[in-house]
């Protein structure tokens, strides 16, 4: 099963002087079990797009289906389908409001109407997963924590609802390099261990290169390209049209090739790029 968008158009403030079309007939399938990255510059419609995935916005025209169910309906089925899509917004720490970490993480599950012991178990699991020690922090106010910790608590609040699909909008914005690496590693293990389908919005192509199974480039409310990374990162035209830059690894290999090193330029992860360079260096030594 998957999330499918068929011909989705969305217009902000229709029929006023401020009318603006943010999505213009988007067709997209977000396959289950995959980690899809959506990239595009500011105003390309990516945030509008992800808000359609759990029914926060309803398309002006077109249909969004989650596991085959049209989520714009008001039936029980449609509501459940919407709840199966968890959403982590940009700067999720700004949504914290409860007095204690435990209560805040429990807020989502409580709204789902779960039993108390189940809620407690989920809170514990979710906090464990984001590496926040339950016993130490459960009674603390989230507002006494550091920015990175607050963000992890907020993400735990969404994970505790055990969504089948997880959408993250710029999850690493404003984090330091260590925090970013940690969070990215957690997201990958969500996919591997919990078999979650993940949709991540980012304009950091290096992050995307590291983790994505599928890459979508957006521009002016349209999907420019929807392809696996090994294809997407080498589509120079699409990358340029979307106003993005290729990952540093790709640019580096290309620059080396241009300055005369006989290196294969088909890698985009750091490890592979290193291997390609090492290989090229060896080749050069031999020929010398």
């Amino acid at each position: 099963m998957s999330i499918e968008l068929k011909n989705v158009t969305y217009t902000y403030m229709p029929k006023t002087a401020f009318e603006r079309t943010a999505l213009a007939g988007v067709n997209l399938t977000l396959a289950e079990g995959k980690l899809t990255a959506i990239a595009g510059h500011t105003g390309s419609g990516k945030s509008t797009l992800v808000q359609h995935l759990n029914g926060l916005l309803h398309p002006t025209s077109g249909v969004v289906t989650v596991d085959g169910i049209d989520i714009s309906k008001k039936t029980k089925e449609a509501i459940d389908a919407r709840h199966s899509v968890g959403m982590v917004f940009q700067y999720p720490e700004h949504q914290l409001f409860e007095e204690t970490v435990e209560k805040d993480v429990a807020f989502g599950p409580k709204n789902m109407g779960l039993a108390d012991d189940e809620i407690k178990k989920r809170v514990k699991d979710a906090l464990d997963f984001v590496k926040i020690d339950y016993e130490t922090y459960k009674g603390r106010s989230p507002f006494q924590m550091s920015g990175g910790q607050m963000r992890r608590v907020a993400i735990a609040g969404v994970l505790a609802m055990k969504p089948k699909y997880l959408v993250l909008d710029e999850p690493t914005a404003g984090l330091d390099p260590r925090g970013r690496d940690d969070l990215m590693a957690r997201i990958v293990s969500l996919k591997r261990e919990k078999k979650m389908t993940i949709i991540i919005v980012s304009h950091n192509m290096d992050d995307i290169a590291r983790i994505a199974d599928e890459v979508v480039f957006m521009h002016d409310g349209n999907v420019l390209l929807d392809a696996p990374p090994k294809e997407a990162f080498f589509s120079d035209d699409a990358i340029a049209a979307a106003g993005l830059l290729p990952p540093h690894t790709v640019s580096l290999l290309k620059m080396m090739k241009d300055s005369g090193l006989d290196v294969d330029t088909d890698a985009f992860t750091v490890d592979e790029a290193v291997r390609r360079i090492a290989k090229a260096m060896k080749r050069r030594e031999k020929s010398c």
Partner: protein
Amino acid sequence: MLTDITIGQFFPGTSLLHRMDARVKVILLFFLIIAIFVFDTPGDYALMCALTLGLGLASHVPLGTLMKSIKPLWWILGFTFLIHLCTVPGETITTVWIFTLTKEGFMRGFFLCLRLVLLILLSSLLTFTTSPLALTDALEALMRPLRVIGVPAHELAMMMTIALRFIPTLIEETDKIMKAQQSRGVDFETGSILKRISSMVPILVPLFISAFRRADELAMAMEARCYRGGDGRTQMKVLRVTRVDYAGILFIAVFFALQAALKIVGI
């Protein structure tokens, strides 16, 4: 959603009214409002209506949009009219239950409502043709003489400017927080009143926190750029009285003279 709201009713344009100095507009509006109450014969009202219509046309604001500004006051207008219709003694038209509707009451109610409508339309014309920032600048300039008696004119204007500046930001913020909490399963639309009020807590707490944070950051940024209040401060956009303004003042003066003349002649 919430972001679909526009704040203030400024209607950008380049009409004569748009080009006038905001201070002049405020003062002229003040005199016009007085005139509405001083000149009160049907003939005066006709003139006033014609003037309002003329100004409306001159402003290039669509008349429909202009008329919409009366909408929030429908209830007050209707109520005022009914009260006058039923309570003013005079020639009876008809009797409904314990109320006697009189001809005098009808006339008086009608003219009072007309007065209110003219008042709203003229003030709306000001806000339609003046950007909020120009308006606060004008108010600051007009309040400046009051500094002698200790009115902090600049500070008040600065507060207004900041408040106006932050309305859209806070709306956006509210929208974002609401969406985040909706994604966590909060239901804002159904349930009892008590339940709906309690579902506001998850929005208000983060909103207050972010408002305080923003206020703090703004204060810091202003201080870092050496802001120290109004004394000796110049403005980027200096208000200037130009030919358009003199023409406007002259026009309104002639209009008043005409009304006064009519009053003295006694029509």
